[in-house]
């Protein structure tokens, strides 16, 4: 097992990794920017090294600073958390050459998964359904027109080398295709230094379904069910749940078996999430692999009983899946997560500041992952996630009831939060019926001023 783990992250996920290390008896090193000097992950780690000023690119994203911190503290492993350097193949490589174990997939695999077209091809070869589209990078507008004609409009242009919506264009008819292709190429070149674009069928109002995987270094891959993350605003997830109301046991079994095959073939190790879209016929299509632990991992931990972060550390140190997951994976009950952000619930303007009052809900079936504390500061330099509130129940109705009760009793004063928004979503009949997709907020009246007047508090 590792001698010492350095956590190359901040906030709640840094604390989460520290928790797993404490349970495994591994000393921890926190790294922090000057803005995070008084944060909880610094307090609860065994050692802490200041690595830079507040700005992320000068601190948490500064590879030499993070590696040097590992060197001077003699850490032999680094957990990158999510975001920041977690899917940076160069960083994983530097760890490898510095003799520090990167707790994640091998850098070559992360790099491969980062090239969306390669990931699609790998999945297709293993029988994982992918969206109809171009076989590779588009060579011309004519080629695109041909493919689009075959698979039918609308179609979507996507950047091969990046994501986050950049280099993406929806094409609804042939006449607009050439112009939109040029736009997509220009945007991709500017954002990712690579103008390569591929084409996919565009699914209107899809459901976002993702599967959690954990693989060891001995060729064993386990799939721990799926999560549905359809409730989003501007591509940012707000609520996640497991299991998905739309996934049948048969579909789950079929996809899981193919994913094991696919991930084995590419030599995947450690934790990861495979994202899909589901169309209105209930068919799943592969989108991409996130080669890291994700924000919403606690949802899967609740239904599977598996500590995924401990699992990451154990398999990185050479343990087999059988040591991490005793027996077959059993998914029990239903779990929900609300991402509580420090932002105004209607304007969505960020709301950093000092937390003057805090009551964290508890009780049966309730879990809160947070680095917030009374009198603590939410700094303006990083993401606005204040807390993750996760509930579990024997079925979806119970986990929703627990979430409602926990949201009601979650007091955060001094900053604005998205709690009122979450409560409105959970009260909506479509959500209660499981009738959701990624356009849920736009299709309902939840964001309209009339609906929001009632909770101006």
């Amino acid at each position: 097992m590792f001698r010492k783990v350095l956590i190359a992250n901040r906030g709640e996920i840094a604390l989460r990794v520290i928790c797993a290390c404490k349970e495994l008896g591994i000393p921890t090193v926190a790294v922090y920017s000057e803005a995070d000097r008084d944060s909880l992950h610094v307090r609860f780690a065994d050692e802490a090294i200041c690595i830079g000023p507040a700005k992320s690119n000068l601190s948490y994203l500064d590879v030499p600073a993070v590696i040097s911190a590992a060197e001077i503290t003699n850490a032999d492993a680094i957990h990158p958390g999510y975001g920041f350097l977690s899917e940076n193949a160069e960083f994983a490589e530097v760890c490898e050459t510095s003799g520090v174990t990167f707790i994640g997939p091998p850098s070559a695999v992360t790099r491969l998964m980062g090239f969306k077209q390669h990931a699609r091809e790998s999945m297709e070869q293993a029988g994982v359904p992918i969206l109809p589209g171009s076989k590779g990078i588009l060579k011309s507008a004519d080629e695109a027109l041909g493919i689009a004609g075959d698979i039918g409009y609308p179609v979507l242009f996507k950047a091969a080398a990046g994501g986050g919506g950049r280099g993406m264009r929806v094409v609804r008819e042939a006449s607009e295709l050439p112009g939109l292709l040029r736009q997509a190429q220009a945007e991709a070149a500017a954002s990712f230094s690579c103008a390569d674009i591929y084409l996919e069928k565009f699914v209107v109002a899809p459901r976002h379904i993702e599967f959690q995987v954990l693989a060891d270094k001995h060729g064993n891959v386990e799939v721990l069910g799926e999560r549905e993350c359809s409730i989003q605003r501007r591509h940012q997830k707000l609520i996640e749940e497991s299991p998905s109301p739309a996934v049948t046991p048969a579909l789950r079994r079929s996809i899981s078996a193919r994913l094991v095959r696919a991930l084995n073939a590419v030599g995947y190790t450690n934790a990861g999430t495979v994202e899909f879209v589901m169309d209105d016929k209930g068919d799943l299509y592969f989108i991409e692999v996130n080669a890291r632990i994700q924000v919403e991992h606690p949802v899967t931990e609740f239904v599977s009983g598996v500590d995924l972060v401990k699992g990451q550390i154990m398999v990185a140190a050479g343990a087999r899946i059988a040591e991490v997951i005793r027996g077959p994976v059993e998914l029990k009950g239903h779990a929900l997560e609300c991402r509580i952000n420090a932002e105004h619930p209607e304007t969505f303007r960020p709301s950093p500041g000092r937390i003057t009052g805090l009551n964290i809900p508890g009780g049966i079936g309730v879990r809160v992952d947070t680095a917030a504390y009374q009198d603590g500061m939410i700094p303006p330099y990083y993401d606005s996630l204040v807390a993750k509130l996760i509930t579990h129940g024997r079925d979806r109705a119970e986990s929703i009831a627990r979430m409602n009760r926990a949201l009601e009793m979650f007091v955060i004063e001094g900053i604005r939060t998205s709690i009122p928004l979450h409560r409105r979503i959970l009260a909506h009949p479509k959500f209660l019926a499981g009738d959701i997709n990624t356009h849920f907020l736009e299709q309902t009246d939840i964001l309209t001023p009339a609906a929001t007047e009632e909770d101006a508090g």
Partner: protein
Amino acid sequence: MNLEEIKELIQLVIDTGIAELEVTRGEDTVRIRRNSPVAAQEIVVPAPTVAAQPAPVATPTEEAPEPEDENVQYVKSPIVGTFYEAPSPDAAPFVRVGDHVTPGQVLCIIESMKLMNEIEAEISGTIVGKLVENGRPIEYGEALFSINTD
């Protein structure tokens, strides 16, 4: 003396702002010296009851008295790494307390990922304090030298 008691003593030093505290109980002695702006990180405990490995010590070695002087500026490390006072193990230190330095003059090396980074003075003045000892791990923003500006 256990770790909890030592932590309470450290807090006492921080809260009261006193410069130095030495406590002897039986055969155990703890001396805590506080130097602003470097906050005491970890304290080496000589007592055999402490099971954990001693963490790097934050107390300085050679050091001139630090006046509460507006003219005194601190040279702070811009990177994380290991502090070396000389260009090589046998060589003389780049600077000593009392030396006058000018902008661009190399004061020390911070080694990071096998690269030796020369840290240069940005001001003119006299070194009044060398705040860390040779070979010490350094974090970002840690004070290395104090300089009495011209």
